[in-house]
């Protein structure tokens, strides 16, 4: 692009998908619920109330820290109070971890499209509660406390990313990982995954860190990419024009695709952090740690590599099959009971099963069509019991009814017709009924044979063995 390179760090807030909030029993996810319906004395900070920690928040955060290869997951960590005034912060402080967080360090190796990978380090990973939401409406300030106390993990990367695309790749991989671990729905549009981008530029190859800007309010991966792209361009333009970059906070306006200056970043506010006296230290003893980590699955990038190697399928296939954990499980279960080439299973999955999954908006784990059903169907194709076309319709029917494929094939009489005598009879009728086309064929336009195949398939409701039909047609059309 130029003599400059971008230096990017991402600060993410991940909403954990627990049933209840972090410090009370209210429902955690309020998407589409009316304002102030999932609230109680605790999360609205009434006088006298106390927080009680939801253990599944810790469990999910430990899974994430472990998957991010934290240097250390602390056996004892603490919550602290971050004190500040804001109307949607009902206690006047946010309960967050501060200098004694759950985990230290960590990284993710993000594969880049060109085949390299980028190691993105993690400088901060801690648990905290969300604040409420302020809406300005007709000059009035309205507050929705539903979001107060929703569990978050704040995770901050080092300044390791070098382009807008890399930042997007990191977020894609993070989203995949969060869903893979089952700890967050990671839907950016719904605020489950929020991202602020710190961007600065420097001369290619230099190792200085220049003043950075922070871009907030970006709520899709595409927008993160676009916003960073725009900010890099702006900074290069500024520097080339001899101006300096100031530490602004920027707001991304997705409608106009432009950045707006929110405020000049003041000196760091003093939040007067101190340990939260209403909560005990989080004691992660070996037993609990063991219980949590026993649920830690093989991670997506490792599984991608293993699947490609073990089943000798292209990395392209492995990538698609590991997009989502239950799809990878599905593939391996199917391969396990299939005697043929794993690549065949992969093809069926990528082409036909994924079509069903996408059109229904479900995960592979939610299919009625079980891996052994798929294998049964593939086997029938292999054995030429049914045609590929029939197979596709059987897939749909199994998914719809949950009935075993063989039953559907038998009941609906879908077995492939390979009976030469029967097929000859059909072909005789077709030839007899279409003298004009026969003439055309015999006049040398042999491509008409495709039309005849179609007719025969129609007559046999798609069950005819297409190779055999082709063969017989060739013979019978040429003859007299």
């Amino acid at each position, binding site marked *: 692009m130029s003599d400059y390179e971008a230096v990017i760090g991402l600060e993410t807030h991940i909403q954990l998908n627990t049933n209840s909030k972090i410090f009370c029993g209210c429902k955690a996810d309020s998407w589409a619920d009316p304002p102030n319906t999932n609230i109680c004395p605790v999360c609205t900070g009434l*006088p*006298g109330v106390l927080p*009680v920690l939801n253990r599944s928040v810790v469990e999910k955060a430990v899974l994430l820290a472990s998957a991010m290869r934290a240097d250390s997951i602390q056996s004892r960590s603490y919550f602290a109070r971050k004190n500040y005034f804001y109307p949607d912060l009902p206690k*006047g402080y946010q309960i967050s971890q501060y200098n004694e967080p759950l985990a230290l360090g960590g990284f993710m190796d993000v594969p880049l499209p060109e085949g390299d990978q980028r190691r993105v380090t993690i400088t901060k990973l801690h648990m905290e509660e969300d604040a409420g939401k302020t809406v300005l409406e007709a000059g009035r300030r309205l507050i929705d406390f539903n979001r107060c106390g929703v569990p978050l993990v704040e995770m901050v990367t080092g300044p390791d990313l070098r382009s807008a695309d890399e930042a997007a790749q990191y977020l894609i991989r993070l989203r995949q990982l969060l869903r893979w671990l089952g700890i967050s729905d990671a839907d950016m549009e719904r605020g489950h995954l929020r991202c602020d981008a710190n961007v600065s530029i420097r001369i290619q190859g230099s190792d200085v860190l220049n003043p950075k800007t922070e871009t907030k309010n970006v709520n899709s991966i595409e927008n993160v990419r676009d916003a960073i792209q725009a900010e890099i361009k702006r900074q290069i333009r500024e520097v080339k024009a001899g101006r300096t970059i100031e530490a602004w906070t920027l707001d991304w306006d997705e409608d106009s695709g432009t950045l707006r200056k929110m405020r000049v970043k003041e000196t760091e506010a003093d939040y*007067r952090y101190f340990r939260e006296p209403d909560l005990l230290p989080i004691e992660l003893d070996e037993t609990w740690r063991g219980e949590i980590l026993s649920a830690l699955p093989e991670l997506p990038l490792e599984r991608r590599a293993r699947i490609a190697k073990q089943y000798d399928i292209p990395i392209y296939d492995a990538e698609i099959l590991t997009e989502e954990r239950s799809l990878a499980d599905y593939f391996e279960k199917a391969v396990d009971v299939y005697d043929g080439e794993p690549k065949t299973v992969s093809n069926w999955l990528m082409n036909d099963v994924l079509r069903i999954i996408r059109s229904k908006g479900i995960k592979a784990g939610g299919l009625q069509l079980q891996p052994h059903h798929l294998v049964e169907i593939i086997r029938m194709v292999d054995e030429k019991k049914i045609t590929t076309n029939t197979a596709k319709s059987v897939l749909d029917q199994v998914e719809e009814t949950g009935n075993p494929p063989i039953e559907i094939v038998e009941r609906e009489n879908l077995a492939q017709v390979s009976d030469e005598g029967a097929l000859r009879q059909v072909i005789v009728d077709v030839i007899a009924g279409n003298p004009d086309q026969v003439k055309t064929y015999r006049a040398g336009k042999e491509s008409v044979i495709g039309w005849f195949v179609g007719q025969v398939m129609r007559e046999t409701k798609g069950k005819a063995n297409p190779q055999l039909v082709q063969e017989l047609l060739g013979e019978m059309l040429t003859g007299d």
Partner: protein
Amino acid sequence: MTEHLCDLPAHEQVRRIKGGEISAVELLKSTLERVDAVEGRQARTESYTPNPTDLEKVHAFITVTRERAQAQAESIDQKIAAGEDPGPLAGVPLAVKDIFCVKDTPSTAGSKILENFISPYSATPVKHLEEAGAVVVGKVNLDEFTFGSSNESSAFLPPVGNPWDPTYVPGGSSGGSTAAVAAGEAAISLGTDTAGSIRQPAAFCGVVGMKPTYGRVSRYGLIAFASSLDCPGPVARNVTDTALMMNAIAGPDPRDATAANAPVPDYCKGLTEGVKGLRIGLSPDYFKLKYPDPETGELIEQPISPEIESAVLAAAQTFAEMGAEIIEEVPMPNTHHGIPVYFVISRVEAASNLHRYDGVKYGYRFPDEEENLRELYKKTRGRGFGIQPKLRILMGMYVSAEQYEKGHYERALRVRTLIRDDFERAFDPGGSYKLDCLLTATTPTTAFKLGAVYGDSVLMQYADLLTVPANHAGVPGLSIPAGFGENGLPIGIQFLGPDFSEATLLRAGRSYEMATEGEAWRALQPKVIGAL
């Protein structure tokens, strides 16, 4: 002297109610008549001009919950009529310090900023007391947000008067509780103790007060002052009633992560078993006050009042005669750090705990500033808070600011562990002293005159010098009456024991009561009752 039901000990009230001798409604009636007779004019937050009759009355209550109490008393009587168990505190009139949330009652914390706050829920210990059959007569006054030792800082005035002489303070911050119980306006009260706020006013008003082990009683619903020090606890006229209350309020709470899961004994069991073989310690560090001169900062040492010292020594003698072992010269060298450390820790926590009173959600809001957020905050808090919360916020903000936090707050936390170490050494079963408890004075002096110390926030604080170490250490403490001073005001003595030793402290207290049962001072009545 005619007997008034409201003056009976709680356990006697329960016995008569359960036995059908009296009804809960009758007992409530007697109690409310006493309230009407001794209270004086209703305390309010409007500007206060004292008048002479104020100095003859108790002014313990912020809110008297007559209808709620009537309904509760009637339901107790119905249970008895139906042959159901009405609970171990059936019908006992209870005054709740107005720092606890009680469902559907104003829960003010003695502050203008919460004057109009009606709680939608009840604090856990209040719920437990009501489940045990206690009848909430009302919410009693306190220092604003419990910030004080005299009750004079409440936004609700006239201030509470000491029933033994209403020209004197009742102590604080649970002064409304101890005054109400001393004056027969309730048989028991639920108070809170952050630095001595139950024990000091109990001593001043001649009643029994216990600060349980930190975590023994749930803090859920207690409007927080200093979260790591606050302890709800009982106020009663005798040790047996205190034990009855402990039975109701002690125990774990799923709503309080800091509430202890340790098993709860029956505190009434073994109360009268005596003190034979009990190892009771006396510490020279509890017979003197060591504090920095407010002007020069120089450490001053001065003995506690001689009449109080003799009361402690006489009690020790009594215990020795009952077969206890008295161990003298137990060093508690970090006692004098209690107040400075408290100054730092409690203010940091208080400043943060007071953040939520911002005029946004509930309580007082400065009426004309809804447009400008900063002004809304400033004026709401500026006018809603009294001087004590403001002082504590300033101090708390200062010592927790980034540049001072290490030198003050973190240091205070380290000194706090030294204070804890003093107690661990004294109580260590394998150590040199092996104490079951320490016996000390509760306060350095008897109650002071209204207005005498108020305004001198440093000097006021030293009224808590003998009580605050237990809060830092988390250990339990019990104050019981032990006679009267020359001015006719009560003297209190204090027992301090290891974690969860409440039963031992209560047994020691009960033994002292039994040993001194026949003494003349036991028959004395508070002036406000004598005047009726």
